[in-house]
């Protein structure tokens, strides 16, 4: 097989072998495993870059490694599709993972589960890569769940902590609920098209009735909702912060959670052929963006804040793919991966410095103590709040501009408001954490993290600055767009541009929103001209709502989990033991009773014996009448 195919399969092979290595012989490697693991991932990063250029200067291709499941008419192989979309994702995934690996060497130093950590991190990279390059829905589904499993195992990495193992379990189960929809979608797709290979499916899509397409699209989207933590199923992501911070950076910011967006982009044909489904996507995205930002406003746990911001940024991406501008969505995905990864890593470095402190109210004035961290963090914050020239500005504005120009004004308005809130909460975090007087409790003296952690942060920060220029506006003839949009050519354009407002006008507004958000944070937490407490007391109910995460967890607990458990207990204790088993044992008991009765006949009295005998004879003689 020729080179590019070899490369294609080497990319997942490296992390896979890494996993097997650490999984089996981890304890013989000790600290070394970290470096080798990172080496593997870097290798596959380099290979993906190579592959990127191969694809960029030639064209995409597909390849089947071996036939996997052949049952009747159901035929799927382990096969890869390498096109521009997947190579971009590859580069992003392997790149960020490489950095996170390196970072983790420092972060996880001295943890007794060191090689276990790296084995699962490698496994994750493998699964994510396979997810990106897989060429049929079955394979996609497999690694779709595999990454879920990795996140489960890594969230619960410190399993002694009940909260950690709970969070892991929650993540897995909530994802399963989404995957259930996803699986049913696949069943329906197979039932209608008799195949699961991408090309064949996409070729068949235009010919299948619209409502079927819609149902399929919505079911697939259910999977995305679970994986990318959109509104009804977002509850697992904030808890997922129990895991090690690099994991949060890699899985819960950069890669896995964006799989939903990638999936929709990958299936743009299906989604674009059902506008209804796309509108649902848009609606969910919009709502989630706002809703998560709203919660993030009042949290005090830095990782939780960043987590909610992730949810809300994902909302932006879904808005983008929901209106059919997939390129914009992917662009925001990439840039978000970079700066959100950056934010998490820096947050991790803060934790590392404060030996695991997460509460904003116990920080402050860290700027002086950990400069690199602070600066990189601020870069990330600016990117997040969309201040030019940071990447967030370009990508988010690309999304918002498309939304406006395609005439979804309401969504656009919400998007802008969300932008304001975003800027506010991230800078609230920055101000409380890095400026003002230190509120550290005694015995904790912050210190800068080691080089091995700061260097990846710096690299990411650099990318956070430059990556935006790929989308030099106007986005629609930017480098990135021109590179990628060819992959979406056979999407059905269900939302045409209604007006072409110049981008600067729109971006002006959003920059304004961002700046004002920052300003509000500034007056509240630096100048202190307005006391946050007063505002809190004014908007008491709203504040409580936001502070308690809109009580979603409680609602789920009381409306779903508790009743179900009671019902199950009833099923077991009453239906199973009493009714069904009772019936079985009841029959046996009945026979015992008969037995007692029957043995009454045998009472030892000769008299009664003779009686039975003669009665029997008389009875037999009755034959005369039935004759």
């Amino acid at each position, binding site marked *: 097989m020729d080179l590019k195919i070899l490369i294609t399969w080497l990319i997942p092979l490296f992390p896979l072998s890494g996993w097997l290595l650490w999984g089996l012989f981890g304890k013989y490697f000790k600290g070394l495993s970290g470096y080798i693991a990172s080496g593997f991932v870097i290798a596959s990063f380099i290979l993906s870059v190579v592959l990127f250029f191969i694809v960029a200067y030639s064209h995409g291709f597909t390849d089947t490694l071996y036939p996997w499941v052949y049952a009747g008419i159901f035929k799927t192989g382990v096969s890869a599709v390498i096109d521009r979309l997947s190579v971009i994702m590859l580069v992003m995934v392997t790149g960020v993972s490489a950095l996170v690996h390196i970072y983790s060497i420092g972060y996880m130093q001295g943890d007794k589960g060191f090689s276990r950590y790296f084995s699962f991190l490698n496994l994750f990279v493998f699964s994510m890569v396979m997810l990106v390059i897989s060429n049929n829905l079955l394979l996609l589904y497999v690694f779709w769940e595999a990454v879920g499993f990795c996140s489960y195992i890594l969230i619960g990495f410190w399993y002694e902590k009940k909260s950690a193992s709970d969070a892991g379990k929650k993540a897995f189960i909530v994802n399963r609920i989404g995957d259930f929809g996803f699986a049913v979608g696949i069943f329906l797709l197979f039932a209608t098209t008799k195949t699961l290979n991408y090309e064949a499916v996409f070729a068949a899509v235009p010919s299948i009735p619209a409502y079927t397409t819609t149902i399929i699209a919505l079911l697939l989207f259910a999977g995305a909702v679970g994986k990318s933590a959109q509104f009804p199923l977002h509850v697992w992501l904030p808890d997922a912060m129990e895991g090690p911070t690099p994991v949060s950076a890699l899985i819960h910011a950069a890669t896995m959670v964006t799989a939903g967006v990638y999936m929709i982009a990958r299936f743009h044909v299906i989604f674009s052929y059902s506008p209804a489904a796309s509108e649902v996507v848009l609606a969910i995205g919009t709502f989630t963006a706002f809703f998560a930002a709203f919660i993030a406003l009042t949290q005090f746990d830095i990782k939780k804040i960043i987590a909610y911001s992730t949810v809300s940024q994902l909302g932006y991406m879904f808005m983008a793919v929901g209106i059919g501008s997939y390129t914009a969505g992917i662009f925001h995905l990439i840039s978000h991966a970079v700066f959100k990864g950056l934010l998490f890593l820096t947050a991790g470095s803060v934790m590392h410095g404060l030996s695991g402190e997460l509460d904003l109210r116990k920080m402050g004035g860290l700027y002086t103590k950990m400069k690199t961290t602070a600066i990189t963090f601020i870069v990330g914050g600016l990117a997040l709040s969309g201040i030019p020239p940071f990447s967030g500005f370009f990508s988010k504005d690309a999304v918002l501009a498309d939304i406006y120009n395609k005439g979804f004004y309401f969504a656009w308005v919400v998007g802008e408001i969300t932008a304001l809130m975003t800027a506010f909460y991230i800078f609230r975090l920055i101000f409380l954490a890095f400026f003002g007087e230190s509120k550290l409790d005694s015995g904790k003296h912050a210190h800068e993290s080691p080089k091995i952690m700061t260097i990846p942060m710096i690299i990411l920060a650099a990318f956070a600055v430059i990556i935006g220029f790929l989308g030099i506006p106007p986005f629609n003839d930017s480098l990135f767009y021109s590179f990628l949009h060819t992959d979406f050519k056979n999407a059905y354009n269900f939302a045409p541009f209604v007006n072409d407002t110049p981008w600067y006008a729109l971006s002006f507004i959003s920059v304004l929103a961002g700046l004002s958000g920052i300003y509000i944070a500034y007056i509240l937490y630096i100048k202190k001209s307005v006391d946050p407490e007063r505002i809190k007391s004014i908007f008491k109910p709203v504040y409580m709502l936001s502070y308690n995460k809109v009580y979603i967890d409680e609602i789920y607990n009381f409306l779903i989990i508790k009743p179900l458990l009671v019902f199950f207990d009833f099923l077991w204790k009453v239906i199973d033991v009493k009714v069904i088993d009772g019936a079985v044992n009841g029959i046996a008991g009945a026979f015992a009773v008969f037995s007692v009765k029957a*043995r009454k006949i*045998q*009472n*030892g*009295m*000769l*008299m009664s014996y*003779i*009686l039975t005998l*003669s009665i029997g004879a008389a009875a037999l003689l009755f034959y005369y009448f039935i004759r």
Partner: protein
Amino acid sequence: MNNYLIVASIIFCIGALGVIVRKNLIVVFMSLELMFNAANLGFVAVSNRLNLISGDIFVIFVIVVAAAEAAIALGIAIAFYREKGTVDIDKANELKN
């Protein structure tokens, strides 16, 4: 002709009655003898009616058997009396259930 069989069956049923109602082993045994004799009567009557002889032969064997049973029965009666001090068959109630 049926009259003979009727009479025989009457005696037979009386014998059955005796076996059922009486508790005295000896009397029970006598009632059994009655039943056998009823059968004898039947045989003789039938063979006479059909101008046959085999029935009468049968009667002879029945008488023989009756004699044998008498021997056994009285033997059992004596043994039972020796153990229970009575021939009341209601006293034979050790074996039950």
